[in-house]
């Protein structure tokens, strides 16, 4: 009982601290949110302009929605991925990493706390972007299966969390280059997951790799639910791989993290200076 209560409080320590950081670094939040909004708008405008660009009649509403789903989901998943994968890099930069690692907190508690923050922060940011974008475009979601879409998104988050944990390890292993590497992972996910185009347009070998990205399934399922109004049971073929990936990536991430943490403590890579 007291064990769980302590771990619960420690979980909240990470959530509260990260929200406090968001408030204190509000200038950067304004920058990121502006950037994300403009980015989402620019991409959605590509859909709006496609008829003019190609000179052919097109289903512009469909294109807009297609790209909007891509940009929103990507914005959400990348926020979740970033804020988890940067948990180590960030603390190393602040110089607090040793303080946090010295605390009597189970590593899964640390991860759960970070994850709870990341998911709630990601949802909030995506809602803000959605709010602004709907102001610019006439978007009709009355026939979309929003419940199914949310469900897929939440289940998809789980495997992204696992990916994030694995990526978080890199700054522990490579104090200098680690966070650059996590950005490369993220860029690859963007390329192969069919965010702005069907993966069928990719070369064969890339299509094979895209099977391993959870975002691929999230995106396809979201489009089925929102563009084609598919029922939730029709989304199951996409949900199973996501659940499977979550079951694999999270324990794998924790395992890798544990091993690397031990390695870092053996080789002296936790410290930044002093």
């Amino acid at each position, binding site marked *: 009982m007291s064990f769980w*209560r*302590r*771990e619960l*409080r*420690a979980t*909240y*320590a990470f959530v*509260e*601290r990260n929200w*406090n*950081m968001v408030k*204190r*670094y509000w200038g950067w939040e304004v920058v990121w949110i502006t950037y994300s909004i403009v980015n989402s708008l620019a991409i959605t405008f590509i859909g709006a302009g496609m008829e003019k660009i190609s000179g052919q009649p097109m289903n512009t509403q469909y294109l807009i929605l297609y790209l909007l789903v891509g940009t929103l989901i990507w914005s959400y998943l990348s926020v979740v991925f970033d804020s988890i994968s940067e948990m180590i890099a960030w603390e190393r930069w*602040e*110089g*607090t990493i*040793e*303080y*946090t*690692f*010295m*605390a*009597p*907190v*189970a590593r899964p508690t640390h991860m759960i706390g970070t994850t709870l923050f990341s998911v709630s922060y990601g949802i909030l940011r995506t809602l803000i972007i959605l709010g602004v974008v709907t102001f610019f475009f006439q978007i009709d979601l009355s026939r979309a299966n929003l419940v199914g879409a949310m469900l897929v998104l939440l289940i998809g988050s789980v495997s992204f969390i696992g990916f994030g944990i694995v990526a978080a390890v890199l700054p522990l292993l490579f104090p200098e280059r680690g966070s650059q590497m996590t950005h490369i992972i993220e860029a690859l996910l963007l390329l192969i997951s069919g965010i702005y185009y069907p993966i069928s347009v990719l070369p064969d070998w890339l299509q094979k790799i895209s099977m391993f990205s959870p975002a691929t399934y999230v995106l396809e399922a979201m489009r089925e639910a929102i563009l084609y109004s598919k029922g939730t049971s029709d989304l199951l073929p996409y949900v199973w791989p996501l659940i499977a990936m979550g079951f694999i990536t999270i324990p794998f991430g924790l395992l890798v993290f544990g091993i690397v943490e*031990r390695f870092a*403590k*053996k*080789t*002296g890579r*936790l*410290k930044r*200076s*002093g």
Partner: protein
Amino acid sequence: MHHLALNVQHVGKSFASEEPWLKRLRRRNGKVCAVSDVSFQVKRGEIYGILGPNGSGKSTLIRCLATLLIPDAGRIEIFGHDLQRDEKTVKRLINRVSVDAAFFKKLSAMENLLYAARLYGMDGATARKRIREILERLGIKELHQPLEHMSRGMQQKVAIARAFLNSPILLLLDEPTTGLDPRSKREVQEFVLEVREDHDATVLLTTHDMDEADKLCNRVAIIDNGKIIAEDTSQGLKNLIQDRVPNPTLEDVFMELTGKQLVTEEDLVSET
């Protein structure tokens, strides 16, 4: 409660060498030997000082005790708990304050300490109350100002207060006054003595400031090149060289002892 707060036996720690050409003196197959075969014991309630120059292995030793480094050799017991086996229990008994105060610079004192309190399982209401008391006592009125606006001396005091927030019974202070101006230094030293008294804690303190060791510590170990070369009360250490230097200070003791040590170390290296 165990009467030995800390029992360190034959602890050693090396790192892969980063700058081989600079560290040639201490190199053995591309390794920097930061701490080698260190043993000492600290009794409950003592303030034990580890005195040594830059790069002598003080921080490495402290990190080994704080579970931040896994030693290559040796055994560490804290109040009878083996550090390797009982890591989580030990983590509840200790806290560490490093040279750099290790705060989230943009967060306020309140926010930083609240994070610390929750990490150690305290509930919000109790934590806020205790933090207010502590900060009041330190004379800090801006509970909600980012910590980066505070002087280094004040930050260091907040760091020590944070360490005591969770009532550790062994406090590890790694050069708590290095880089402070003389006045802040004195204030921090007095604060250490004061809170130690209140909390009945054991303190392990590293420093390269001879006066500080003299003033604060019940016993002092002199460390050089990762090895402890002498250990006693500061009077006892001075007595060691009484016959050679009249009215010696700890500084003199250090010069006498490390001078000798450096020679033997060099001999040792050139032999291999």
